[in-house]
């Protein structure tokens, strides 16, 4: 079972992503956090064998997406966590930086579309979670 997590401080974006994930059948087990710190707290209590797919925003107050990734990679749960960076930034520096994190499997420019969403199910590392 793959748990889907949205981490984004923008409530409208979270609302939109939820709608799209519902349409694409990704929302069976979906949680969202509007602060990266809250998401870290959540992961502390999760089981190590559980698999996660995080849609992570970069530009957030208090703790940004990069700081979140730095903490995540030190956590035991890290090996079963897949991260897709979701950002409104078109700065290629962000895209390059995303490549340096092993947890990051993709980089998406906002807005997340249904097409992008369907593509996620085709990833080799996620295929086992979407048998149909």
């Amino acid at each position: 079972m793959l748990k889907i997590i949205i981490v984004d401080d923008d409530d409208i974006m979270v609302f939109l992503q939820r709608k799209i994930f519902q349409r694409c059948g990704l929302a069976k087990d979906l949680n969202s956090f509007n602060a990266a710190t809250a998401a870290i707290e959540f992961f502390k209590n999760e089981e190590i064998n559980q698999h996660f797919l995080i849609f992570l925003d970069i530009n957030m107050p208090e703790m940004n997406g990069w700081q979140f990734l730095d903490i995540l990679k030190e956590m035991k749960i890290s090996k079963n966590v897949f991260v897709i960076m979701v950002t409104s930034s078109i700065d290629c520096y962000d895209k390059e930086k995303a490549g340096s994190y092993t947890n990051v499997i993709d980089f998406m420019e906002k807005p997340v579309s249904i097409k992008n969403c369907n593509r996620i199910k085709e990833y080799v590392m996620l295929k086992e979670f979407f048998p149909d």
Partner: protein
Amino acid sequence: MSIKDLWAGIDETETEILNLIRKDGFFKLNISHIKKNREIIHLKIQSNPIMFDGKEARVALANNITASLETKRALKNSEQRFKALVQDGSELVMILNFDGNLTYVSPSSKLVIGITAEVLINYNLFEFINYIETIERHNNRLKVIARTQSHVVRAPLSRIMGLIDSLENFENMDDQAQLLSHILTSARELDGIIRKINSKTVESISQSPIC
């Protein structure tokens, strides 16, 4: 043995030397001589015709200029070394006084900082550095504006794009009113950001060193 046997013939040929000497009147020439110990010395000869005891004669003054020539040659070598090290080197070399006024700039300045030595030498180095720092500060302000475009402007814009996409694709969406209200909120936010960038750009331009 005549004096001709002592000419080393380095500077001028024997014929040229004889031609010079045969002329009436004053002459001067540089000549090389072989000393008894086979060492070659360089002489500067100046000669004037005089009447001596009622006979035509010449008074000649010979100066040993060997050391002076050696010094000149050494200076030339040293200048060539300077040229090789400073003028043709890839490092930018500048000579300036205590006030920062430049007296020498090596040609490599074109390669190193993109400004020719002829232009750079007219500047005072301290003022020039200050000038560059001002430009860098200005560029940093522009970078902040560019990054803001990328992150902050695109946030509400991408939201609007996503909301419109939802409206188009989910015809039966029960919360269309909510979507429309979100579009309006995002549009207002975008408007506010554009106004902020505009005032920041105007402020930055007014502080520009070029203005």
